[in-house]
């Protein structure tokens, strides 16, 4: 059969540099590289290349580069090449197009159109190298009701909560979608940083119960791996109602990744596709959510906060307002640029709204309804750097989740083919020979380094604004200005334009 598509990438090998050591061949699980005895040199099968950059990074003589294929279909502003490519694929297979990682389309990134303030003259900036600069955050409800004992002393009883040394957590990525070693790295880094990682919907491998006090365990619509010990093993429980990459549908894990311990941890047979139901079948409305929240609280003796994670969709403010009255302690909102191990392409690229808008709308609505103290807000869905963190907090978040950024720290190059199970970086794969490429000692250190660096940057930006504690930044929208945004966008974000 003729393949109507052309390779997306070109493997450019500099034969002056190539020493035919065959590292690239051994490193490529997609079988792009091979050594030809006949030709006496390395050859490539470019149709298989996903541009993961593994061979480029490991080539000892730097003889390789992967570049976009210059061969283009005839240019057409409407019928862009991607649409032709996708039609050819579907015409061949009759399947749903699958993609991985976050929405790559050029939709607006509002974080890039927001700038931060700094002190000049009328108040001093604060130097984090010389003064305390506090980034500790408590997540959970904060009812401002003061109870005193018979002597008039305050009874210092705080509701169940999470305590973070810095306002960043690792977001849900299931064991199955990512490897054992990737999970081990996230767990160890979370422990060392004094933050939390999230199991995702695949259950918790028994080896990782030891990291329980830094673990958020997730309950999703498939209820994979959910049992009482699991619920009690973590510091908090997250009910996953939705995910920014695929609002309206459940998680997808191809059967190829359900092998060995993944199958055991999920409590499903090897090789079966783990396709979570689109809704929770015990939650068809907000009052049902309340029941699940309290079922979980009962099962965990009211000792752990419950997080409800939702995808950012049109009516997000009203939905969040309902959740804030459901007994949940924390709401996590995942924007349309959030990552995924596998999602239908059309959904990933077309469903949901930008996290900046969703976050601002939710924070404003909860304040209008005087229920902001009922919950903490966690913002997810493509936090790329420390300034994104600062902007999210100033818009109204208590903390953020990072997923893609954490994977990138471990080596991911965003080739967006996690669904293939052939991750050459040992992250989004279950093949033992690939998994072992990711060394948890190194990867956890890289995660710690990343967030240590971010925390320094957050402190520098806060200090510049004259703020020495992160709670004074939360919802402090006067510290933000929009650049090149229209009136409507500014009003939803609740910020002024630069120059105002």
């Amino acid at each position, binding site marked *: 059969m003729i393949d109507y598509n052309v390779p997306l990438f070109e493997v450019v090998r500099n034969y002056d540099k190539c020493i035919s050591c065959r590292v690239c061949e051994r490193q490529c699980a997609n079988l792009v590289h091979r050594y030809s005895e006949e030709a006496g040199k390395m050859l490539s099968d470019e149709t298989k290349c996903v541009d993961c950059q593994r061979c480029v990074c490991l080539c000892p003589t730097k003889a390789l580069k992967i570049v976009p294929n210059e061969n283009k279909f005839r240019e057409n502003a409407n019928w862009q090449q991607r649409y032709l490519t996708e039609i050819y694929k579907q015409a061949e297979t009759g399947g749903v197009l699958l993609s991985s990682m976050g929405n790559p389309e050029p939709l607006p990134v509002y974080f890039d159109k927001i700038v931060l303030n700094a*002190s000049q003259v*009328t*108040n*001093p900036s*604060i130097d984090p190298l010389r*003064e*305390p600069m*506090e980034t*500790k955050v*408590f997540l959970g409800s*904060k*009812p*401002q009701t*003061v109870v*005193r004992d018979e002597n008039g*002393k*305050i009874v*210092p*009883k*705080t509701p169940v*909560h999470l305590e973070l040394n810095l306002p960043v957590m690792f977001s849900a990525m299931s064991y199955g979608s990512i490897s054992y070693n990737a999970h081990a790295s996230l767990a160890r880094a979370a422990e060392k940083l004094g933050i939390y990682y999230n199991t995702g919907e695949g259950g918790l491998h028994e080896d990782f119960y030891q990291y329980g006090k830094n673990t958020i365990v997730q309950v999703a619509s498939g209820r994979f791996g959910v049992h009482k010990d699991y619920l009690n093993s973590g510091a908090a429980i997250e009910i996953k109602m939705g995910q920014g990459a695929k609002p309206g549908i459940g998680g997808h894990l191809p059967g190829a990744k359900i092998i060995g311990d993944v199958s055991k941890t999920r409590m499903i047979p090897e090789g079966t596709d783990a396709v979570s139901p689109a809704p929770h079948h015990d939650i068809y409305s907000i009052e049902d959510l309340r029941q699940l929240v309290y079922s979980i609280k009962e099962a965990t003796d009211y000792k752990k906060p419950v997080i409800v994670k939702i995808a950012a969709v049109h009516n997000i403010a009203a939905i969040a307002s309902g959740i804030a009255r459901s007994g949940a302690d924390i709401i996590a909102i995942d924007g349309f640029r959030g990552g995924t191990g596998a999602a239908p392409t059309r959904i990933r690229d077309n469903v949901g709204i930008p996290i900046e808008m969703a976050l601002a709308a939710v924070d404003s609505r909860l*304040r209008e309804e*005087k229920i*902001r*103290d009922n919950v903490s807000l966690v913002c997810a869905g493509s936090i790329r750097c420390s300034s994104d963190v600062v902007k999210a907090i100033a818009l109204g978040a208590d903390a953020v989740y990072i997923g893609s950024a954490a994977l990138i720290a471990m080596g991911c190059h965003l080739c967006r083919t996690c669904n293939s199970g052939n991750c050459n970086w040992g992250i989004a794969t279950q093949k033992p020979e690939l998994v072992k490429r990711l060394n948890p000692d190194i990867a956890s250190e890289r995660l710690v380094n990343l967030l240590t660096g971010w925390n320094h940057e957050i402190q520098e930006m806060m200090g510049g*604004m*004259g*703020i*020495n*504690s992160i*709670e*004074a*930044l*939360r*919802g*402090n*929208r*006067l*510290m933000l200005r929009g650049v090149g945004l229209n009136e409507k966008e500014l009003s939803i974000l609740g910020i002024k334009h630069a120059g105002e």
Partner: protein
Amino acid sequence: MKEGQFRNPSGCAISAIFDKSGNRFSGEDIVKSIAVMHDRSNGLGGGFAGYGIYPEYKDYFAFHVFYDSLAAKRTCEEYLETYYDIVNLSKIPTAKIKEITDEPLIWRYFVAPLKNNLSAMQLTEDEYVARSVFHINTGIKGAYIFSSGKNMGIFKAVGFPEDVGRFYMLDSYEGYCFTAHGRYPTNTPGWWGGAHPFGLLDLSVVHNGEISSYDANRRAMETYGYKCTLLTDTEVITYIIDYLTRIKGLTYEESAQVMAAPFWQTIERKSDEEKEKLTYLRHIFSSELVTGPFSVIVGFTGGVMALNDRLKLRSLVVGEKGDKVYMASEESAIRRVQPDLEKLFYLKGGEPVIYRTEVEK
């Protein structure tokens, strides 16, 4: 542009004189004290608060009101007559001086909430009055209540504080506590309501600084029903203190531990009991933490509190002599009225200094 339509940070001078025995003294000294710090203000705002100044009406709320027009006065008085028993009303006496011009109509009312209304609305007196103040200040155009406590009053204007003191003839009032403010705003206000002290009920605040937590604090206070119309630090600090003390029942000491919370590293070194309490306050009242430079003097019935931000980014000094306590941005402002001090100390960052009258007279 009028105050409230733009954010208006200010540099300033503040001072206060307080008598621990509750004895009343003339407002003359506070004017002298603030006058020394002339260069810390720029003529765009000055004011005073006096406590114990209306003993003959001490059970009535004293409303000081600016009116832009007679129409505003009529509307406001109609409202007051509907909801209050007005026992006395008059113009606030002022002296014509060349330094102070363009004054609005300045009126004073001694009022009591109508009992029937109070019980029908199931409100405390204080809450009833606070709601009226917000109603008039945001709802009646051209009317602005700038003082609303019992047995206390705020006097303020656009001008240098010493001129404002002469304008209101402050030497003719006697109280057990006076606070003063000279303003150095970084924008030009054209409006008397924007001068300080800022007050709500018997609470008054004079403030020097520019807080970096402003919008976080403002948005939190608006969630709790306060309307920030002036967009100044002093306004939001006043509301935070009112919220913490009157609504949430915290003491002034506890409120200070919320607004200028000790650093975590300091809390770590405290006793277990203290650690738990301070952690609780920071955890639950995180939105009321105030960062950035500030020095404030807070007047309230029977007491006064001085507080600096936790890094001590603004000057504030306290002196004592006998029953008298003096507080000021600069020592010179104290020495001017009491050269012979028994005690003099600088406030530590985040550590409040609170004085109360032994017996209120």
